[in-house]
């Protein structure tokens, strides 16, 4: 069994699961309760917040725990738009965002906001120049994906952040869900105001995540009720989830330090091998994120290849998991390559730091055998 679908979700680290279960068993209080059990729970979530913030070099009150990346993105985007709508109603994003960003913006278009969806170049990246040209007097938010979840393309976040430093009324949000632990992005000094992270993409648990919200910025909440999460998010805290998230982050950042070269090597092996297979087209970039390899086999339905590999115990994916059900071509690939055939036949291989050379070799051998077989069937 070889799991190469780590951009869809990851296997939680053993330590993460242990931390979660330990906290669940030992801390039964509600952090809002005044008795010792409540205060212990409150202290624990404060510690988790401190652990996350110190790993990222930010202040602990800048970290809000959420239920995941989708909530983080919706909170950041809708919360900023509604909070500052009296300042202006123009918003900027790109055409290749994850649906949790893209659809939040589409919703805002129906609420009286005007959205500029920036085009991307043929690597799938947005240019600083394009952002600059789109800025207006009434722009209040720029939201960019850091690492694209389909192609692994890395956007020039720090450059855009530097540009936006000259526009103090424009807030800058980054969807860092695929980037964290894979492609470094300093939260401080990059001009970022809001940044979304999701636990289950780096061996944390599903239903966990956080939003970085720079000190001094207020946004409208998505959830109204109690005054949890420094009044930004109502609802009883998932304490064990938050503690396990801090654990996952620490382990992932350690792995990033020690194992990035290793997975870059695996990525290179796979890319080179796929290039050699007749009828394939590698879509991901040399300088993209180290964990994503994306290619198309024009003429071949990607589900067929996914299934053929699954029969051999190798798990990869078509498009992003969230839209796998839709049979439409990928919006991201369409916008990047403007080639319907490529966009319809994309396959994503996504690595974790625990994947091995042996697993990569098995994938390569299998692709070498399976792709020509399947293409032969198609061509009859």
């Amino acid at each position, binding site marked *: 069994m070889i*799991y190469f679908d780590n951009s869809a979700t990851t296997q939680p680290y053993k330590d993460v699961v242990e931390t979660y279960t330990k906290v669940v068993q030992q801390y039964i209080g509600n952090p809002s309760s005044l008795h010792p059990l409540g205060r212990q729970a409150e202290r624990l979530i404060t510690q988790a917040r401190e652990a996350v913030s110190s790993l990222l070099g930010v202040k602990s009150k800048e970290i809000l725990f959420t*239920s995941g990346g989708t909530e983080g993105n919706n909170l950041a985007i809708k919360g900023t738009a509604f909070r500052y709508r009296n300042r202006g109603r123009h918003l900027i994003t790109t055409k290749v965002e994850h649906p949790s960003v893209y659809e*939040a913006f589409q919703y805002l278009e129906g609420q009286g906001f005007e959205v500029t969806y920036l085009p991307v170049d043929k690597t799938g990246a947005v240019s600083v120049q394009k952002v600059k040209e789109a800025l207006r007097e009434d722009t209040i938010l720029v939201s960019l994906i850091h690492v694209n979840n389909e192609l692994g393309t890395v956007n020039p976040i720090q450059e855009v952040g530097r540009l936006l430093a000259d526009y103090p009324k424009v807030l800058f949000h980054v969807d860092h869900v695929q980037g964290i632990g894979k492609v470094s992005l300093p939260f401080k000094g990059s001009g970022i105001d809001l940044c979304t992270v999701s636990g289950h993409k780096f061996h944390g648990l*599903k239903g966990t995540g956080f939003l970085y919200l720079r000190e001094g910025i207020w946004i409208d909440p998505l959830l109204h009720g109690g005054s949890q999460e420094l009044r930004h998010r*109502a609802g*009883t805290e998932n304490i064990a989830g938050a503690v396990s998230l801090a654990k996952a982050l620490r382990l992932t950042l350690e792995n990033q330090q020690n194992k990035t070269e290793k997975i870059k090597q695996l990525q290179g092996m796979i890319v080179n091998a796929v290039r050699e297979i007749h009828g394939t087209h590698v879509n991901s970039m040399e300088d993209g994120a180290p964990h994503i390899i994306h290619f198309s086999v024009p003429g071949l339905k990607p589900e067929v290849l*996914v299934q053929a590999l699954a029969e051999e115990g190798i798990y990869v994916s078509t498009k992003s998991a969230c839209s796998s059900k839709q049979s439409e071509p990928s919006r991201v690939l369409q916008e990047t390559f403007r080639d319907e055939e490529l966009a319809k036949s994309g396959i994503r291989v996504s690595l974790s730091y625990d994947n091995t050379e042996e697993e990569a070799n098995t994938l390569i051998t299998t692709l070498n055998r399976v792709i020509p077989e399947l293409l032969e069937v198609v061509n009859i």
Partner: protein
Amino acid sequence: MKNIYVDHAATTPVHPEVIEAMIPYMNEVYGNPSSIHTFGRKARRGLDEAREVLARALGCQYEEITFTSGGTEADNLAVIGYAMANRENGNHLITTQVEHHGVLHAFEFLEKNGFDVTYLPVNADGIVSVKDVENALTENTILVSIMYANNETGAVQPIQEIGAFLSEHQAVFHSDAVQAFGIERLDMNELNVDMLTVSSHKINGPKGVGVLAAKKELTIQPNLYGGEQERKRRAGTENIPGIIGLKKAVELMETTRNEKRALYKSLRETLLSRLQEADVNMLVNGSHEQVMPHILNVSFPGVNVESLLTNLDLDGVAASSGSACTAGSIEPSHVLAAMFEDSNRSQSALRFSFGYGNDLEQIEEVAKRTIKIVQRLQT
């Protein structure tokens, strides 16, 4: 001295079997349910099964279950989501003054967005009158939200009656049943409710999971956009282990509900009569008949609840002043304020709430310790 937890209305310990059920869904079945390969499909199967169990438990259809990150999110989705999506049918909403903040603050948000909200009063027992609902109803009313059981007093509202009455009206009916779930049998059809909220961590499930059950023909504006999950009512990768934990908690509760109800009833009666027999000045807050068996809210006139709680702490009893979500600091309770003019009464109010792990012996002990402290503080 042994510590005794009587704050189960705030949150409950997770049942050991619940954790056990979750572990395989963290270690092995970790796929994304949206993925088309085996990993994804196994996770999807777990999700489907949980949805079936919840639908059965709430008396609704499979596709009417939406998993959320908790009770607050489900309340917000019901109230804000329904109101926003159905504005063209009317601008008027009805709720009560004693709702949980997850409902109340959602209505306040809607007021700021141009809706007209009627906050119905309650009587001294904490109960809303069906007549008041009828009188408040207008042609423009699109939503009525009334909690099943109050989290501070345990007072149970006449949901079925109100539901029956509303079935003739365009207004849909939402009920926050977070405190009733696990103890009362909930059937959306029998109750005549269109939307129902429950939360996992109140029934010995994990925190961070909740459910909105909502009739499938209702249009609800999502709070979270960005994926096909939960039939587009709630985007985001599903919290599979959490949902599996909730499923297990529901299964455990279904086999033990009747026993538990009987046990809590006897715990409540015991504690109440011990307090009444003792030489302390005491008032019971909330209805005597229409009340959840796991909640007992009492005031001790002349006693400041903060010092009472501190003393109970020292004696190893974890109880609460009001709902945990208004706590953190002790703010005056909006629920008790709606029931009585007398603000002293709410400043001396203490909530005991029972649950998994409590037994008669513990409650006798709680009674003893409480009486001793109150006697000291009242002299």
